């Protein structure tokens, strides 16, 4: 029972991070391997805001998310759009964007290591017990989960009930046809990429309230987010959310039942199962 609750709470944060990557890869078609660095940067900003200025991290999201939006939009406009223009097919864009975002990954990680060093950081925010069904859980995890659900619901409303959201979904399905119905594909892709970055930053902010972080952990989270995205089916918002909870649960189960050092093994086991049996995503029908 405890595993179920802890896993679900963790899954809420994973969902937010993975939704960010879904938008970036599924809609903007950029395999952003520097996604985890956005997350870690958000952790550090939240830490700095909280410990220096005493800003509540949940409120801090109001600053962090727009900042991440602008930063990611600039990255897309300056670095990635030329690659999209140059690419002749999707495969080439994938190779190019993978290599380019590797560059960004190391660049940002290097800069953060220079600024903050390799030490682990954490801060005390709402570190009080909160009782669910008689068992105490850390209040900050519960708050992070609730905030994550709120942000995801906002995203869902945006994607399924606004014109701009429909445009994002359209380019995720087929950029060529989206153009035919007067959608500015290049601009919408840039916007999806930026929005994805903002979501990941929200995830990072929430994560920092209960997780001990350091400058070089970004890749691990990118990895988890990628696996969630693939499990859910690329571009599938609902699939990604479900996959995030599955990952959160199985990681928590492995960490508490077998060994905390084997969480990545649990992630990989899931990944292999998905690749072997449902490479098109857990909710999607038909061949990949």
């Amino acid at each position: 029972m405890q595993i179920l609750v802890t896993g679900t709470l963790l899954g809420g944060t994973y969902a937010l991070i993975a939704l960010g990557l879904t938008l970036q890869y599924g809609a903007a078609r950029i395999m952003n391997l520097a996604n985890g660095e956005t997350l870690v940067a958000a952790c550090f900003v939240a830490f700095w805001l909280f410990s220096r200025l005493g800003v509540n991290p949940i409120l801090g999201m109001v600053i962090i998310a727009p900042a991440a939006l602008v930063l990611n939009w600039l990255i897309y406009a300056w670095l990635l759009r030329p690659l999209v223009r140059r690419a002749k097919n999707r495969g080439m864009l994938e190779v190019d964007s993978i290599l380019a975002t590797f560059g960004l990954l190391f660049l940002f990680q290097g800069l953060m290591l220079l600024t903050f060093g390799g030490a682990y950081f954490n801060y005390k925010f709402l570190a009080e017990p909160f009782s669910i069904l008689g068992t105490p859980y850390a209040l900050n995890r519960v708050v992070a989960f609730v905030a994550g659900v709120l942000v995801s619901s906002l995203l869902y409303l945006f994607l399924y009930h606004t014109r701009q959201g429909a445009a994002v979904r359209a380019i995720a399905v087929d950029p060529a046809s989206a153009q035919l119905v007067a959608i500015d594909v290049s601009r919408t892709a840039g916007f999806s990429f930026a929005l994805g970055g903002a979501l990941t930053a929200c995830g990072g902010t929430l994560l920092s309230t209960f997780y001990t972080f350091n400058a070089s952990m970004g890749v691990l989270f990118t990895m988890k987010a990628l696996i969630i995205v693939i499990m859910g089916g690329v571009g599938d918002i609902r699939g990604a959310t479900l996959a995030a909870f599955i990952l959160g649960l199985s990681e928590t189960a492995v960490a508490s039942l077998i060994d905390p050092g084997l969480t990545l093994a649990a992630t990989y086991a899931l990944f292999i199962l998905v690749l072997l049996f449902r490479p098109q995503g857990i909710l999607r029908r038909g061949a990949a």
Partner: protein
Amino acid sequence: MTGIHRDEMLGLICGGVALALLSLLPLLTEGFYLSFGVNLVLYAALSTAWSLFSGPTRFVSLASAAFFGIGTYSVALWLDALPFVVLIAIAALASAALAALIGAATLRLSGVYFVIFTLGLTELIRQIVSWSQSRFAHKMGLYVFTDFTEGDLYWMLLALTAATFSVGWLINRSRLGFALRIIGDDETVARHVGIATARAKIVLFMISGAFAGIAGAIMAPRYAYIEPQAAFNPMISFMVVIMALLGGTRRLWGPLVGVVPFTVVMELIAARFPNESLIVVGIAFLAIVYVLPSGVTGRIECLRERLRRSLGTGVDAPGCGKIEGRA
């Protein structure tokens, strides 16, 4: 199979002479320059092995470090029980087996799955090795004591590089190499003309992995004390990718062009500005994508083509931009 062209003959002779000259190094110097030479030859072997697979297929593999670590551990685990030659064979087989597993899981699908899978692979194996060592052996590291000198390791790595080259050359001439070039150009076409694309990719990935594993096995005596953290170092994979792409993967010797300058640069950076090395790696990746999309050798060939055309002797060759676009 056709006969040996004159160009190839020339390449063979040049390669042989270069090999002979390089093998003199341990006789001339020791200490810093020799140990630098070992690094150089190590990365030459790893990058060439990497581009055996990733060059023609354009699948970015980040598994080099995993193969390398498996090779290192193969030696460390059974050094007291078996002769070194057998251990090298074990390293090659174990790495090839791992490559077959990775290939079977991902190479039937698109390239992205492969990249993602190999991205975390080194860390995964490190976790498993650490866990099983603390669980079953109750200690973290293993000692490797041998009589090999730095010079011996250098010669072995040089021989490995030569072997990688020969195998790469043979593959290029074989049906497998031809099949892979078609797969790299257009996988759908390859499948339609009856190439078993997944099998061809898996076989080549196994060969490439086996060479990386052997490199790890040869390097094991140099570390003396082997622990998961050092043996499974993900940076090795990234360095290999940068060096190979920097040099260019369209020629067998392309990666070498990247290995030499980048090893020198990283050595300097590590000595002078150790904290900035990640930033340099980042800039190198960006430079590859934006400045040298087909590597130094690709750029040179493209310039040569342009020169020939401006002299009016060449046939109507594709423009520079087109060649670059194919990286």
